[in-house]
């Protein structure tokens, strides 16, 4: 029965083909460094899921942001766990994505025909850092407030358009409710959408091209 149901679905969806092409594809003999890309993807999913759960109670307003997080930590069952995973996962993801970039760099995996994979990877790294930057403000505590004050002041040193960039990031001359909501929107909608789409392209490239092997003396 289950077999028949599966065969019915498989015939229409091509599940076996997807499995064979994506998971059972041929790979050269590689090492553990080659798992960092998958680890990045899993961390992104983990951040996405825990983030959805945090959004159940978090409120992006200066009045309530801090209190709503206190409520998550002390008032809701396992709130500390969900927030803890999201908090530590954020740092871990930056580290893992960065190591993944180093591995593709040191193994020369960015060379023809994988330049485009590298290119999407660069944007993925920048977006991951952007997630860290925008997420850091959301607790709206002293550390968040001053870190973002500094972080949005930095681009102000750019010649001519610097102050304008600062004002755009802040949504005004200083940090305010407007800053908090735009950081929130970028953190939960804009960047995840871009990252999700780019991971799709990135992994499509990996599957289509196959991964590079560990370079030997001749390479």
């Amino acid at each position, binding site marked *: 029965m289950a077999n028949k149901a599966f065969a019915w679905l498989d015939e229409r969806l091509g599940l076996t083909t997807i499995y064979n092409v994506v998971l059972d594809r041929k790979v050269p003999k590689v090492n553990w460094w080659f798992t960092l890309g998958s680890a990045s993807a899993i961390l992104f999913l983990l951040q996405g899921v825990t983030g959805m759960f945090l959004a159940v*109670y978090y409120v992006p307003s200066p009045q309530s942001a801090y209190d709503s997080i*206190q409520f998550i930590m002390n*008032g*809701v*069952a*396992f*709130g500390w*766990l*969900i927030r803890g995973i999201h908090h530590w996962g954020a740092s871990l993801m930056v580290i893992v994505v960065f190591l993944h970039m180093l591995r593709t760099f040191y193994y020369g995996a960015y060379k023809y025909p994988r330049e485009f994979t590298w290119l999407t990877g660069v944007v993925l790294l920048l977006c991951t850092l952007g997630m860290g930057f925008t997420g850091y403000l959301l607790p709206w505590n002293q550390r968040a407030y001053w870190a973002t004050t500094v972080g949005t002041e930095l681009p102000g040193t750019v010649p001519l358009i610097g102050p304008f960039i600062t004002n755009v990031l802040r949504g005004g001359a200083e940090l305010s409710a407007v800053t908090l909501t735009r950081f929130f929107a970028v953190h939960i909608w804009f960047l995840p959408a871009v990252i999700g789409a780019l991971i799709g392209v990135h992994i499509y490239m990996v599957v289509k091209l196959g991964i590079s092997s560990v370079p030997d003396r001749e390479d």
Partner: protein
Amino acid sequence: MTKSPHLSRNNFVKGVVGILGTLMGVIVGLPAIGYLLSPALKIQTSESWIPLGPLDNYPVGEPTPFSFTRTKINGWEKATNSYGVYVLRKTETDTTVFSNICTHLSCRVSWHDDIVQYVCPCHDGHWNKDGAIVSGPQPRPLDTFENKVEDGNLFIHFVEG
């Protein structure tokens, strides 16, 4: 699948991934369910006697509205909820206090002097002066509060949660 007495490396890895994956899913998944349900599991009931002022403020035979507020902490926010009741003194000594919460789906009913009925605006429920159903989808007469009079002051027994 070949009938080898040994587990192939491939199947071993699949098995381990399956088991570890399920384990991690359960370890994170169960707390996640608790996280979502927790506010519903923490509802506390509270009760108190609310003073509605001197009984003499309420004319006999005429439904008279009274409203009061209660503050309550919901999650991270202190909320002030207002409640409304209708006091009906049937005689000098026999008083009934109706809740204005519709017994259908909880909209607020109001007294209409012109037709001598309580009316709910949401699905057109009607009740007569004694709170009995006249027409509409509501399953019950209007709810009432237990009340008492002390030193000439009227109190209702208010239970929340």
